[in-house]
């Protein structure tokens, strides 16, 4: 098993070689661009860590570079006047705590007409207003998009096909994006989740400084867990004679629906962003909804901003009335419910580079883990009910 983990390091080298080749590449039908974030997070709570289900860090008080840092390189290879192949490699800390590059995109793009484009292959799953550029932190004001909304759907990419219809109606630009995702896959330390046969549509309407977006979709969900809390909860349910409830915790054949609506106003000085998203599943994961509201104000190269965000559960995976402490602890661990307020500033230090600092105070719901994970044993050090202050600093760049 270990041996198979070594080869990604070669890929990291290849990634940087690709970056180095950027300048020369544009003349050979290959177009290379990239993005990245070097981010550090400090928490005032040594017993939890933030936002990524990787292996616990040694000491929570040290800055955590894993939560926000990412490097992506994208290549477009021309196959003709109207067709190209897009490949994107992204290195971010994964469920093993490693920065192994992952091929997040690999698709064929064909312009059927000047306003209609079809893409097929491994695509970015377009669940949210900003999901397309989700890891490209340079494009938005925050150190990271608000986790209360963007944590609702952790699938980043999926194999499928989508269509982009663009049309201008008067002075309004409309983009319609129907998509069919055959399968998406994500792994965490003790398990994985699969999205299958997801059919959705996204609509974007742009008028002057205003952008409005709607998204809806539904598909099948399968989840496998192997973490101690899960085993504890499932065995408890089986022992209590509730096999049907136990079967709701993990398995195949779940149904999930996802909706989002968002807006962005950007007149060059004032930037207002808001988004609401809702995830509904008939089993395996907590049904929940979340929103955020952000205001940013540009003063030359500086853009101070403030964000309010909230995620609430709508329906638990299994009823808490069953009364087993193990099940309750498990349900806590599968709920990201929390609220937060953030204050920060973005500083555009150079074309294509921004420095950011963001302070966030989070109140995690009493029966949830929020976007946090326990540093030690999940049975004794639950993040539930905590107030966590967090400072994030990052350098974002695009090239």
């Amino acid at each position, binding site marked *: 098993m270990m041996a198979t983990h070594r080869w990604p390091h070669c890929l990291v080298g290849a990634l940087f070689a690709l970056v180095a080749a950027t300048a020369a590449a544009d003349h050979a039908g290959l177009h290379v661009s990239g993005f990245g974030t070097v981010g550090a997070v400090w928490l005032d709570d040594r017993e939890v860590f933030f936002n990524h289900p990787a292996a616990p860090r040694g000491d929570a008080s040290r800055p955590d570079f894993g939560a926000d840092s990412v490097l992506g390189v994208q290549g477009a290879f021309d196959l003709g006047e109207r067709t190209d192949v897009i490949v994107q490699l992204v290195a971010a800390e994964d469920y093993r705590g490693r920065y192994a590059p992952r091929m997040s*995109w690999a698709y064929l*793009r064909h312009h059927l007409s000047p306003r209609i484009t079809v893409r097929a292959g491994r695509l970015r799953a377009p669940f949210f207003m900003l999901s397309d550029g989700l890891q490209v932190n340079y494009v938005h004001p925050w150190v990271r998009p608000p986790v209360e909304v963007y944590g609702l759907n952790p699938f980043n990419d999926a194999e499928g096909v989508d269509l982009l219809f663009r049309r201008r109606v008067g002075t309004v*630009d409309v983009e319609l994006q129907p998509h069919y995702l055959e399968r998406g896959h994500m792994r965490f330390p003790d398990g994985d989740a699969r999205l299958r046969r997801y059919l959705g549509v996204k609509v974007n309407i742009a008028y002057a400084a205003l952008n409005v977006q709607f998204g809806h979709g539904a598909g099948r969900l399968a989840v496998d867990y192997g973490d101690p809390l899960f085993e504890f909860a499932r065995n408890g349910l089986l022992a209590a004679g509730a096999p049907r409830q136990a079967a709701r915790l993990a398995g195949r054949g779940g149904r999930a629906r996802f909706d989002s609506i968002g807006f962005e106003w950007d007149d060059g000085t004032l930037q207002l962003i808001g988004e609401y998203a809702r995830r509904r599943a008939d089993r395996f994961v907590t049904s929940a909804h979340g929103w955020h509201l952000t205001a940013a104000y540009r003063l030359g190269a500086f853009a101070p901003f403030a964000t309010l965000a909230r995620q609430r559960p709508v329906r638990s995976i299994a009823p808490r009335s069953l009364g087993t402490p193990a099940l309750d602890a498990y349900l806590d661990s599968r709920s990201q419910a929390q609220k937060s307020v953030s204050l920060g500033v973005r500083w555009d230090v150079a074309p294509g580079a921004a420095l950011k600092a963001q302070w966030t105070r989070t109140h995690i719901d009493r029966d949830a883990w929020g976007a946090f994970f326990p540093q030690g044993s999940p049975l004794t050090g639950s993040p539930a009910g905590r107030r966590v202050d967090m400072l994030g600093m990052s350098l974002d760049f695009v090239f």
Partner: protein
Amino acid sequence: MRLLCLRIVLVVLGLVLAGAAAAELVLVTDADGAIKAVSREEAEQLYLGRLSALKDGTAVRLLDLPPGPARDAFYLELTGKNATQVRAYWSRMVFTGRARPPREVAGPAALRAALRSDPHLIGYLPGHELVPGLRVLLRLP
């Protein structure tokens, strides 16, 4: 005294107008190129990556000047977006796989040379960089 004032006002006005004329930007292509005409709306849609060709199907490839006052003025005039907005906007377009950004050239001379090499290229120049052999598609403002 009044006459003097009037003269000063006129001189200042003249300087301002001359400055405005110098700030004129032109959207150009090769005089023998495939692109005969581009409306202002098409130019805006092209430079925002919302169009990849003209409405009659003619392919268009875009050129950008390096970051600087001419480029910033072009985007502000054509799209209403300032330099920061344009960079964020184009990053989104590129990293959402929607469009490919204009190819950046080293300066006006490189831009003129590039236009001669490809009949489907368009680019923009400050008005005073205009030379014979280029077709003016649009004048801004």
